[in-house]
């Protein structure tokens, strides 16, 4: 079938202006080549990644063709054509091709990086968001763009290699955190509190999906009710309003009203009466109380019945009257229940958007939980050792200090020796290390001599003047000269002396080369030790690129005008050295590889 190529504009969204370029299409892929070679919006896409195609009506103000990548997200490649004829020809072409592909079962598209990618190609592997992020980065940072152009587009580095060193920029370590799921709020459900607006006597509860989920987890009865009632019997909203109503009644503790309402509304009653599921669960539990969390574990120390003692719940204290006995019990039970749920942890991970799904998911997880309910006895075991840990008295336990690795230094002197030699070299004191004090004379003599000297001073006292004026002057001027000499050797202001004499053009050029060298070197070194063929290829590519730059540098050096040639060569020198180092390393490695001698432990490189 024919190959078709049309001038068009590629746009990421319908709104944006789009990049002018040429769209080439053949049997299995379509390629978008921007007019501006620097642009990154090159596309090279196989049709089998394309699910379908949309297009604007003839005569609408834009002649659009949208090759959709996946239908539900609706992302795709939008092209705007100058006229409808072009658009239509393309549309028909696409239609035909896609039609073909439908008939062929779509192979799972392999997204591996080709060893030697033919020219630029990243649209294939990347989600558009990812792509956009990179493009943005490149737009913002001209230097980055330069590098990208220089290496990726010229095929020295693959896209992935290029970005691999810039994870931080892409903020990819972010995806570590996205894996995390927050645990249950430790805040009790009680925190769902009505906020009354002052004027009307209407109270509003604010329920977030978060909270609803929590409610389900902690109040099985409500959960069950929800599954039964919503949406079959009532709308979700009504359900929650009822629930809140109940909550409200509970809170205000007018048992009378509660009873009354419960009487005429059985759904409401569900919320008001004690949670039966919990009740029998508790009955089951009571046999294996988990001492780490059950508040009721020892009833002895609740002193609520004492006058003016009460449990502070959401700020206000409910002093214990007899009829609120209920509420007190529920509170302590709530606590236990909550604790249990929190410890159980959040077992389902659906994003808390739709309550219904949440509820079901929860139900599912519950089921399997109960299904693989641990058998009675090992539960007992676990419980026993838990209890044991709780009740052990630390001060009776031996310290759990693990044994430490011991260390024996043979001779501390070694440490000095590692310094001495070169420290002296720095001072040019060559005779230094060797020089040994005349130890021929014995201690006695030495000390005697010293004492004599001292007593001499003692007898003679200090002489005046301390030093002869001329010596003093001599020394002083000596010092002054030394100072002045050091100053001038250092130069006034290093920076300007270094670069500013060089014309800007050359300077920028140099800096550019430097940055590209940095880039290459980074890739070069990071790909050692060479383990895969991929790395090997990469090294090859990088090395060649470096070789080219090496040439360029040489040229610059030659071309530099005589007056600042010196500075230029000064600047270029380190770069050349760096490159040389790399080459040397390469050669070394190379012959190591060829002659399989260099079998170092885990391919370590020298």
């Amino acid at each position, binding site marked *: 079938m024919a190959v078709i190529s049309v001038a068009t504009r590629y746009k990421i969204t319908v709104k944006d202006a789009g990049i002018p370029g040429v769209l080439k299409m053949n049997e299995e892929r379509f390629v978008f080549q921007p007019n501006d070679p620097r642009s990154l919006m090159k596309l090279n896409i196989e049709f089998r990644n394309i699910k379908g195609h949309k297009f604007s009506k003839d005569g609408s103000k834009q002649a659009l063709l949208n090759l959709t990548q996946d239908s539900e997200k609706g992302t795709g490649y939008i092209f705007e054509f100058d006229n409808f004829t072009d658009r239509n020809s393309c549309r028909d072409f696409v239609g035909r091709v896609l039609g073909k592909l439908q008939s062929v079962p779509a192979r799972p598209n392999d997204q591996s990086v080709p060893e030697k990618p033919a020219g630029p190609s990243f649209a294939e592997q990347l989600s558009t968001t990812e792509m956009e992020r990179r493009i943005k980065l490149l737009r913002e940072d001209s230097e980055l763009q330069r590098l990208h152009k220089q290496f990726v587009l010229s095929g020295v580095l693959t896209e992935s290699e290029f970005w691999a060193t810039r*994870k931080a920029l892409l903020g990819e370590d972010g995806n570590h955190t996205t894996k995390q799921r927050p645990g249950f709020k430790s805040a009790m459900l009680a925190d769902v509190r009505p906020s009354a607006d002052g004027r009307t006597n209407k109270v509003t509860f604010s329920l977030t999906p978060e909270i609803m989920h929590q409610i389900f987890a902690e109040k099985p009865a409500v959960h069950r009710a929800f599954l039964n009632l919503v949406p079959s019997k009532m709308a979700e909203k009504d359900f929650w309003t009822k629930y809140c109503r109940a909550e409200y009644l509970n809170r205000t503790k007018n048992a009378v009203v509660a009873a009354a309402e419960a009487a005429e509304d059985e759904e409401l009653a569900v919320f008001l009466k004690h949670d039966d599921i919990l009740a029998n669960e508790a009955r089951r539990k009571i046999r294996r109380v988990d001492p780490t969390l059950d508040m009721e574990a020892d009833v002895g120390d609740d002193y609520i019945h004492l006058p003016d003692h009460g449990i502070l719940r959401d700020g206000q204290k409910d002093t214990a009257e007899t009829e609120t006995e209920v509420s007190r019990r529920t509170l302590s039970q709530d606590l236990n229940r909550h604790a249990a749920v929190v410890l159980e942890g959040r077992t389902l991970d659906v994003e808390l958007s739709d309550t219904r799904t949440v509820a079901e998911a929860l139900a599912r997880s519950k089921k399997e939980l109960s299904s693989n309910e641990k058998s009675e006895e090992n539960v007992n075991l676990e419980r026993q050792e838990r209890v044991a840990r709780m009740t052990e008295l630390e001060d009776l336990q031996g310290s759990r200090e693990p044994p430490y690795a011991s*260390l*024996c*230094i*043979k*001779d*501390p*002197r*070694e*440490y*000095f*020796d*590692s*310094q*001495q*030699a*070169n*420290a*002296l*070299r*720095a*001072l040019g004191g060559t*005779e230094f290390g060797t*020089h*040994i*004090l*005349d130890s021929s*004379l*014995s*201690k*006695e003599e*030495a*000390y005697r*001599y*010293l004492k004599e*000297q*001292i007593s001499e*001073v*003692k007898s*003679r*006292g*200090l*002489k005046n003047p*301390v*030093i002869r004026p001329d*010596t003093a002057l001599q*020394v002083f001027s000596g*010092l002054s000269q*030394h*100072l002045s000499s*050091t*100053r001038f050797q250092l130069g006034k202001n290093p920076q300007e002396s270094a670069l500013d004499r060089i014309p800007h053009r050359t300077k920028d050029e140099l800096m550019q080369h430097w940055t590209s060298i940095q880039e290459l070197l980074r890739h070069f*070194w*990071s790909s*050692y*030790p060479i383990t895969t063929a991929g790395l090997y290829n990469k090294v090859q590519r990088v090395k060649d690129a470096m070789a080219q730059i090496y040439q360029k540098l040489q040229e610059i050096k030659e071309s530099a005008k005589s007056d600042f040639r010196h500075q230029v060569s000064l600047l270029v020198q380190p770069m050349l050295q760096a490159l040389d180092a790399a080459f040397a390393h390469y050669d070394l490695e190379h012959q190591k590889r060829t002659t399989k001698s260099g079998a*170092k*432990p885990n391919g*370590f*490189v020298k």
Partner: protein
Amino acid sequence: MASAPSKLYQDDASLVVALLDTNPFFWAAASLPFSEFLQHVVPFINSLLLLNQLNRVVLIATGTSSCGYIFDSGEANSNANANANANALCSGIIKKLEDFVGKDSKIAKGPNGNGDATRPAISSLLSGSLSLALCYIQRIFRSGARHPQPRILCIQGSPDGPEQYVAVMNSIFSAQRSMVPIDSCIVGTQHSAFLQQASYITGGVYMKPQQLDGLFQYLAAVFATDLHSRNFLRLPKPVGVDFRASCFCHKKTIDLGYVCSVCLSIFCKYHKKCSTCGSEFNQGTVDSTTREQKR
């Protein structure tokens, strides 16, 4: 506000802890006789005390077998206010010095009369006197918000003692931490690796006077400069130190080597076992670049 009063304090009030090398073997061989040496040093101390009545000078003798305080201008008995008669001060110093040397020699001889007469220790205990000096300076720091600016002056002649390396380094770093510069004036024929590093790291002055007969002038013109004035003056810079290490195995300077993760001893090539701490290196070396890749 707390800092404000301390600013009121006189800028140049300084505490100088001077470490005198009293290594007999060195002085016996030295070109400058010890008596001459004192002729320069004692007036220097006077001049320090003269400059500012808040100035304090402490002398510590660095012996071969012991170290000790010789003189402390702050002490009550050596009349604190510097208008004390310089003669008294001088004779006091000499006296103490004499005692010290006597003591030192006794210790050197050891209990049984003859110590290791075979090989007399030629290095003096720099690490000891440095430690003493630092302790003293800490005491000054403790003495309150306003205290003279401390610095250490080592007047050293004898060569370094390898066995002191770790101790000396510790002192140097401690000095650096408490911002106490260590000036070093080398009166010997040879440079000192210790003091060179010390001065470099602590930002002190390292100098080896050419004309020892003009010692006082060197001291007065360079080492007498208080820390405050040093902000405005250019003093002889310490030579840049070559901080490369040399390996324990062959003692040759290396710029690329292997460090034992347990005892930090340095080797020029890969070993199966650390010669210093004897720990086995089971799974080859880890080149830091490999970590780069994991990233």
